[in-house]
């Protein structure tokens, strides 16, 4: 049982969001980089748990990015995983990135591909579904639970106002979110081990980018808060009804 976990490098959640080059590029000046939280806390940790329970034999991590992504992939390896693959390409187009991962997945014969539910920078939520289509296998998105018995996976996913549980025989692509696992902190042994774990660099396969970024912008700032005294909650309700027309 081989698992491929997709790892993406994203700016820290507190990073200042600004743009350069006439608002066409994200300003990386002073930005701290982290493993995309959904990839780390849920997808990777769940994969590690499966291996700890002997349900999986091998975990490979994959990232599509330039050499800058290597510290992030080492951080992920410190949590767990046997080896990592970096596809040496940089792209903001989901289809291009998914094509690279699908290519590696095809050649590696993985039974399970885990992604996070989205990256916290581009919020695309698209990579998992695209990989599944390129491999022509099932895709369960926004999973909150994942259990495995032999080759039968029982997966719970979010639906509007509830949850749905399904069964699917491997192989499958799963996007993960809260509920799947609990965040872990890497320990010293893991950090030491990560240094010597194999990190293979492969060149990208031929693939098209279907979209491009024309530019970025920031939302307009709020006008400022209107404060209502604590002893006059009725006034707040009146304002919400008459002025904001929100209730």
């Amino acid at each position, binding site marked *: 049982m081989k698992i491929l976990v997709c790892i993406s490098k994203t700016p820290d959640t507190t990073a200042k969001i600004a743009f350069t080059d006439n608002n066409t590029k994200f300003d990386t000046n002073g930005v701290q980089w982290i493993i995309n939280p959904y990839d780390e806390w849920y997808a990777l940790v769940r994969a590690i748990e499966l291996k700890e329970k002997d349900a999986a034999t091998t975990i490979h991590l994959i990232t599509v990015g330039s050499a800058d992504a290597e510290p992030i992939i080492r951080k992920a390896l410190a949590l767990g995983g046997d080896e990592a693959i970096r596809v040496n390409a940089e792209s903001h*187009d*989901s289809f291009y990135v998914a094509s690279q991962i699908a290519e590696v997945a095809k050649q590696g014969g993985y039974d399970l591909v885990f992604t996070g539910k989205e990256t916290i920078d581009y919020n695309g939520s698209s990579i998992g579904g695209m990989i599944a289509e390129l491999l022509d296998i099932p895709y369960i998105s926004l999973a909150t639970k994942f259990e495995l018995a032999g080759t039968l996976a029982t997966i719970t996913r979010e639906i509007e106002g509830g949850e749905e549980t399904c069964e699917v025989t491997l192989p499958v692509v799963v996007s993960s979110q809260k509920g799947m696992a609990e965040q872990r902190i890497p320990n010293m042994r893991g950090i030491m081990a990560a240094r010597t774990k194999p990190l293979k660099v492969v060149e990208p396969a031929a693939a098209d980018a*279907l979209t491009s970024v024309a530019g970025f912008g*920031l939302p307009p700032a709020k006008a400022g808060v209107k404060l209502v005294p604590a002893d006059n909650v009725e006034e707040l*309700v009146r304002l919400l009804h008459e002025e904001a027309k929100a209730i």
Partner: protein
Amino acid sequence: MSVLIFIDTAEDGHVKKASLEAISYGAKIAEQLDTVAEGVVLGKVTGDLPSLGKYGVKKIHHVNNDALDHFDAQVDTKVIAQVAQQTGAKVIVFSNNVDGKAIAPRLSARLKAGLVSGAVALPDTSNGFTVKKNVFSGKAFANITVNTDIKIIALNPNAYQVVAGEGTAEVVTANVATEPGRVKVTHVTKSSGEVPLTEAEIVVSAGRGLKGPENWGMVEELAKTLHAATACSRPVADAHWRPHNEHVGQTGIAIAPNLYIAIGISGAIQHLAGVNRSKVIVVINKDPEAPFFKAADYGIVGDAFEIIPKFTAAVKQLKG
């Protein structure tokens, strides 16, 4: 050539509110491109399909068989791809809701059609095809140009107003092949009677300021009075005071209701990231320095335990 809209239905077959937004949005794009809006709906449907014409869809392709009653993105994608081909769709619109997030990327890969997920505005077609979407969890937006002949857009829930006019849609049975799926749905749980968080117009959310799970009764009471959904901050869900699916923010669910009421939440940057697209934000916090006030439209500095019951009473009075 047409604009094809995926009409998403819930497990019981009713058309989701997010689909009405997608139809209104798709119809407007069709008008922009001087073409017609058509819809595709899968599986059993309760309710009246022709009446969806009032949102601007002219023709609805209904594909109904047993294989489609349960959600399986792989099966659904193949069906929608065939309908897209038959209708010569140039733009395909989804809601960026749970089902849209599963199908739209698959369809994009299948048709090699560029996808913009999380769109918040109509496309700019004056020079190419560029769509505005949220990035950095709502802290910024990006204009994404789609460079392929067929374009796919997944519209964020609550980002486009439902527009109802006149009209009746023609409903036809689509002639497409359906493969059996590999996903077997075994169990569905729905919190009955409550408003789903992502579809809610009003959300009442509370944080660590509420001190403990035993104090949520008054939050639920206020939510019920307002027909609102309930949400919470991350530490509240982490401590299991509230279920995980109420956790909003950068690492929880991103929402954009008309009204977001935040009680006893400090307004950390990660929390704001998931809620800052809300149209009106009300903050109730005993600390006047709480960062949330900077992102708020209305606020009260005071004790939540005193203010919530008064808030509920005042809303009850307003509603008579």
